């Protein structure tokens, strides 16, 4: 994989680890092309699924001649169809993601690339999009190992979005763009003043297998601030005046904890997988250990 190893998103070590993984979904979706995954459709594979009576027009090659000999009935043998999987990654590229070291956006891109790579080598249909994209601007659909280079190019081109888009707007547009069902991974910090609940409900109604990876930077988890400050929101220039003190910080931690717990609870109730990621946690470890445990990859 000479092309991928040149990218800063995916290092050779990470690739080595990702090679062994595959994306998992608990739901069975219908794919679009022949792939490696079980589909709802019956079709051609080595795995037997069912018998049914022959009706005119059925392919004679599928008749079970042994049964015909014994029962004198025309029975068609059905096999499971193996198809590809739709794998969508939705990156929140708002300005608020452009914080931290590495920035949350960088982190999200690296994570998207890693998951995308896993999908590509298992011949899944991979599509990586951002929240800011309009209804008609679709991202490329990638498939197959040879598309890794294109995927990386695409991911690296993602820049922080200057025009603010709310989470729910972005998710709604995504759902409108992509009718296909499959696995959706939303990588976001969920810091939307309008709330994330509405956005996530779109996923529920769209009947996708949804993963929310909540990326927070270290600065947000453990703020290292002191003195009298005027905090300025980078997206809407909203201001908050604070005088840092121990009770204030402990109150902040409480609020953050309840915010995270609330998101987790909300997702848990709706069958959405929630995972909180700190930008200090290496992507390699996140994918290979945490997401594997949570069942996104295997």
């Amino acid at each position, binding site marked *: 994989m000479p092309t991928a190893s040149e990218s800063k998103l995916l290092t050779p070590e990470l690739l080595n680890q990702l090679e062994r993984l595959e994306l998992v979904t608990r739901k069975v979706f219908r794919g679009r092309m022949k792939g490696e995954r079980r589909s709802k459709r019956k079709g051609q594979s080595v795995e037997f699924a069912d018998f049914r009576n022959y009706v005119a027009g059925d392919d004679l090659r599928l008749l079970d001649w042994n049964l015909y000999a014994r029962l004198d009935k025309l029975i068609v043998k059905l096999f499971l169809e193996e198809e590809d999987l739709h794998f969508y990654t939705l990156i929140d590229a708002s300005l608020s993601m452009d914080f931290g070291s590495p920035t949350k956006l960088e982190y999200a891109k690296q994570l998207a690339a890693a998951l995308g790579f896993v999908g590509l080598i298992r011949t899944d249909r991979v599509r990586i999009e951002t929240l800011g994209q309009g209804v008609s601007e679709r991202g490329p659909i990638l498939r197959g190992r040879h598309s890794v280079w294109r995927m990386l190019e695409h991911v690296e081109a993602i820049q922080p979005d200057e025009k603010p888009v709310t989470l729910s707007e972005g998710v709604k547009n995504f759902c409108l763009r992509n009718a296909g069902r499959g696995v959706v991974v939303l990588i976001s910090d969920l810091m939307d003043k309008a709330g994330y609940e509405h956005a996530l409900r779109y996923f529920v109604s769209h009947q996708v297998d949804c993963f929310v990876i909540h990326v927070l930077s270290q600065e947000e988890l453990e703020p290292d601030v002191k003195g009298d400050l005027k905090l300025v929101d980078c997206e809407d220039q909203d201001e*908050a005046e604070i005088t840092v*003190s121990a009770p204030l910080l402990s109150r902040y931690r409480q609020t953050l904890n309840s915010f995270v717990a609330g998101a987790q609870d909300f997702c848990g109730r709706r069958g959405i997988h929630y995972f909180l990621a700190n930008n200090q946690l290496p992507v390699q470890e996140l994918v290979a250990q945490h997401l594997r445990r949570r069942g996104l990859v295997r």
Partner: protein
Amino acid sequence: MDTLFRNSLGPTSWIVLGMIPPAIFALYFLKLKRQPLEVPSTYLWHKVIEDLHVNSLWQRLRKSLLLLLQLLMVALAMLALLRPGWQGPSLRGQRFIFLIDKSASMSTTDTADGATRLDQAKQRVDALVDQLESDMSAMIITFAKQPDVVQEFTNNKRLLREALARIEPSAGQTDLRGALELADGFANPDRVMNEEGDQDFEVTTQQDVELYIFSDGRFPSVENFSLGNLRPLFLPIGLFEGQNLAITAFNTRRNEERPESQQTFVQVSNFAAQQQTAVVELQLDGRLLDATELTIPPGGTASATFHLGGENEGALRAQLDIPADFSDRLALDNQAFAVLTERSDGRVLLVTPGNRALESALSTERANRLAKVEKVSPDLLEKAEFEAQSQTEIYDLIIFDQCAPKTMPQAHTLFIGRLPPLEDWQKIAAAEPVFAPQIIDWQRSHPLLGLLELGNVQIADSLLSRPPLGGRILIDSTEGPLLSIAPRDRYEDAVLGFEILGTAADGTRTFNTDWPRKHSFPSFWLNVLEYFAGGEGASLTHNRPDRLVELRVTGSAQELEIVLPDGQQRRVALDQPGRLTFHDTGQLGIYQVREGSQVKKQFAVNLFDREESDIGLRSRQDSEDGLKVVDSLSIGYVDVAAQSPTMRVRRELWKPLLIGALAVLMVEWYIYNRRVYI
């Protein structure tokens, strides 16, 4: 200036200072420009602020905490500049001498917290030192038996305080006179002759010196002392009632009825106002020998006698066991020490053809206690055995009655009616006897002739005993010296010119003198024994702290080791063969004299001073209001009235205030830097 505050700044400075708090206010409000900081989202922060708005009053206080701290600091600094303090008389004068009594009675603990009077005195001096202005100087002298300049005149308070801390209590008696003389030397400089100009002028200007005497006043008035420039001030320390039991006497002697055993006598005094019962324990080398209970009337004494039985050697200790309900203020005098020795350690050889008068004089009971007297006849002098014996130090004294050896023995000698076989003696003295000499003078100050009356002694004939160079004539007569004494190496030779029992011309033995019939005769021989052989009996027991101890030691060691009661060791060189003098007797207890690991002698140092043990302040009724007041000191012709014992000195508060201000500054700085933590 007996006010609560002492203003230390002028009006202009106060105006400038008064502008500081408004300036802080102004700066504080100017400063409150918050630093902008871009964050990913204010979403969570807004929630936090909303939560905290609930207790906003506390928040506001917290926000202006720095301002409050700064104002507090300035307020503290301003208060410090006002120099608040409790009032007491301030020091007046330029030069001060603090005389601190450190005698035994100053170790009394008057208060329950265990602080001794010396500690109180040091505390009060410390408070006075605090008040010293920069142009004042002070010195500190301590005194017990000996005065000691702890710190010479200085205006360095640190030096003075260090000197104060150095002062250790002593067990000595009180002698104010020495201290006064020492202070006098510093305060009243004599006129000094300038060597070059033959002019008489003063090296220092005459200046009044304030003399603060801190003492409990247990000393007699000082006679014949002129204070000169010294202006004394007596600050008594202590209480009127003296709760103290003390051992005031402790000695051992041979039992009169049974001379082979010794007995010990202990006297206990009660200085409290109530009758007390206490137990006296007697220990020999740390082993309890005996104990008895004594009931002592208030202000009186009680005594006990212990029979020691067969115990003959060792260190005796008498310990007063104070009853639990009695708070004994002075612990120093609750024990006493004595050394038990075989008293007749002196050995005396009497070489006589027979002399009843002399023999009986040397065999009295007291004489036996002083020395063992052996008698031999002059025939022995010829024998080689005697030669050998006399060259070793077996005897302390050899008395040659009407005979003389061929060579001088290694001992003190006393010759009766003969001259020593030494050239020095022989060549000066006339060989012919003189007849009927009349005694005209004798050295009463010499220990051999102490308390003797010799004027009535008749003598038939006598040799003249003219001492060689370095000797002294002790008895002089109309014809010439009759008794003289001269040193020989480390011994002394005494020569009594006249025989006591002489041989008459016809060969019969007859009295040469009527001296044996006088009182002075046995006394003289006791003196002889005491001087040559007994010597130090008293010095083993009756030593007082801080006084010189003189001991006779045998052996040829040039240097001895003395182990103090607390285990310290001192090496002492013998300044004179066989005679040891030792000064460092500040501690009470048993001292051991050692040569190598062998204990040669022990001696005891005891307080035994009723004045020191009677720890209450001396008082008299004030004639005016009938109150009890502390008796005044009398120095020369000056009566130094005691200052009130509760005299207070000004205690300044500016130092703690300034320290407080600094602490507030530190807290403010800390909070400013790490505000996270409040």
